[in-house]
């Protein structure tokens, strides 16, 4: 009996140790970003900075163009939300309408999830190039605009909306758009939150498409801007870590606020 009561403590302590190890790189990122340049080279390395400065953050915006990269990233995220509205519409149609070819089209949606990005990388570049969308923010957002996985999530959720509710609205003479807007979407708030958070994370972290599509500094996103800092590895660790913090901290904040929804989203992805 004694052993059994001790077990949760042992497990908890091991998990806490693991959590500290897992989180340590982020802790290191923040403390290094606050160090003056000289201190970041000291040996032995200092875990807690002796003096802190926001200099590196200021340099990102003054000496580099991170203000522009930040705006571009936000624009890419916002375009992603247009995609989310397409996803909601499609999910609603697959959940609540009967139409010819429905199951074939839904299978088509699911099968696109299995296509690896490496296969689509070059053709997508060629397609966007022929549409003259390379080197534009729309071009960066387009390849990931609609997520098949999100359509699947929305469909799963919207199937649970009672048909009677929609029928009643139709009898009252509501148009289909009106039904979607004033009945379906308000009921679907939980799944919209999941989709919204996933869309934000995808857009914010997106790396490979901006890398391929944006040739011009004007259209760089944060991730591409930060990968440029890695070319200066030997030169300025605090600057790199400030850049990394700029990308990581907003995501962590969003995650902490919406943790429940994200876990729910991944849960639905995995096992239904």
């Amino acid at each position, binding site marked *: 009996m004694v052993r059994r009561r001790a077990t*949760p403590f042992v*497990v908890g302590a091991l998990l806490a140790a*693991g959590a500290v190890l897992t989180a340590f790189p982020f802790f*290191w990122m923040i403390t290094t970003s606050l160090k003056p340049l000289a201190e970041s080279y000291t040996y032995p390395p200092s*875990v807690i900075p002796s003096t802190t400065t926001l200099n590196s953050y200021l340099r990102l915006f003054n000496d580099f163009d991170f203000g522009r990269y930040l705006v571009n990233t936000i624009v890419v995220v916002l375009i992603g939300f247009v995609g989310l509205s397409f*996803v909601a519409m499609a999910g609603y149609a697959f959940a609540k*309408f009967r139409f010819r070819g429905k199951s074939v089209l839904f299978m088509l949606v699911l099968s696109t999830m299995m296509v690896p990005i490496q296969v689509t990388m*070059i053709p997508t570049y060629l397609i966007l190039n022929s549409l003259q969308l390379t080197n534009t923010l729309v071009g960066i957002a387009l390849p990931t605009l609609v997520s098949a996985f999100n359509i699947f999530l929305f469909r799963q959720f919207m199937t649970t909306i009672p048909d009677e509710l929609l029928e009643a609205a139709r009898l009252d003479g509501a148009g289909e758009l009106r039904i979607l807007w004033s009945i379906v979407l308000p009921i679907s708030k939980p799944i919209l939150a999941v989709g919204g958070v996933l869309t934000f994370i995808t857009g914010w972290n997106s790396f490979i498409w901006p890398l391929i599509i944006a040739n011009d500094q004007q259209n760089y996103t944060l991730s591409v801007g930060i990968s440029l800092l890695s070319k200066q590895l030997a030169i300025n660790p605090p600057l790199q870590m400030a850049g990394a913090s700029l990308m990581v901290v907003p995501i962590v904040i969003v995650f902490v606020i919406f943790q429940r929804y994200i876990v729910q989203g991944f849960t639905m992805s*995995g096992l239904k």
Partner: protein
Amino acid sequence: MTVTAARNDLRSRMVAFRPPWQRATLVPYVLVGPALLCLVTFSVLSILVAVVVSLTNLDIGGLANYGQVRFIGLRNYQTMFGDPAFWEALGNTAFFVIVGVPTLVIGSLIIAIALNFSRSWIFRALRAFYFVPAITAIVAISLIWGNLYNSQFGLLNYLLSLIGRDPVQWLTDPTIAKFSVALVAIWRGSGLDIIIFLAALQAIPPEYYEAASVDGATEWQKIFRITVPLMRFAIFFVTVTTLINWMQFFDEPYVLTRGGPVHATTSMSLYIYQQGFSYNEFGFASAASIVLFAIIAVVTGLQLRARLGGDA
């Protein structure tokens, strides 16, 4: 007339009064249209384009002037199979899969079972720490690890020096670099797998464990006799998705080492990217991507088949 019949009758009459774009028959197509257009363009059409381009000599010159593009049959594939760098990339990918996938699946399963051990708030708070690496940007993560790995002023070598070890060339020694790059990917990949395992764990009815306790089962027996067997589907699912991810391994080596030193960390995906976007050999790179796709499809197919064949 029954109520339902009356309602249906009324409904069909109302439908008839609506303008054509609002008729129920068209509405679903309008709703799925934009999403399908995007998906079809960037995946179905993409694959077709990749297959066609892989049979041509399309490069940067051809991109400027399509008149220069020629069909060259399977020559890209021939050249590729004769390219030692291709086989090295394939071998590296196999190495990453063999090291990464079992570590991730088993490690995540152990952590998930531990996290599910108690329902107290402490355990729930601890979860967040394990999830965060999964949702943060790879570029940022690679910068952080590049800093920790740095051979001159990096923290890891300092910690080694404390226990009297020589500094390690984390990212510059060809063999060690493979492990260093894989470690970052394992660290980053674990969050998602843990989330999926946790979801499956929570779906196991607590009565099973209560019954086992009554019968005097130890914690180990509960894990191996109840948890693991009931988790078979989740373990299968995580193995398949993790395997697919690692066969497409790209981000970590791209940002940490650019595939070096001397191609030691060049995965298949990175090889394709370099052929396509560093050397602008779009035809050749497409051929390589088709080969990778075929490998992934075959491996995934075999797994699904093994599972269906093995029932369960």
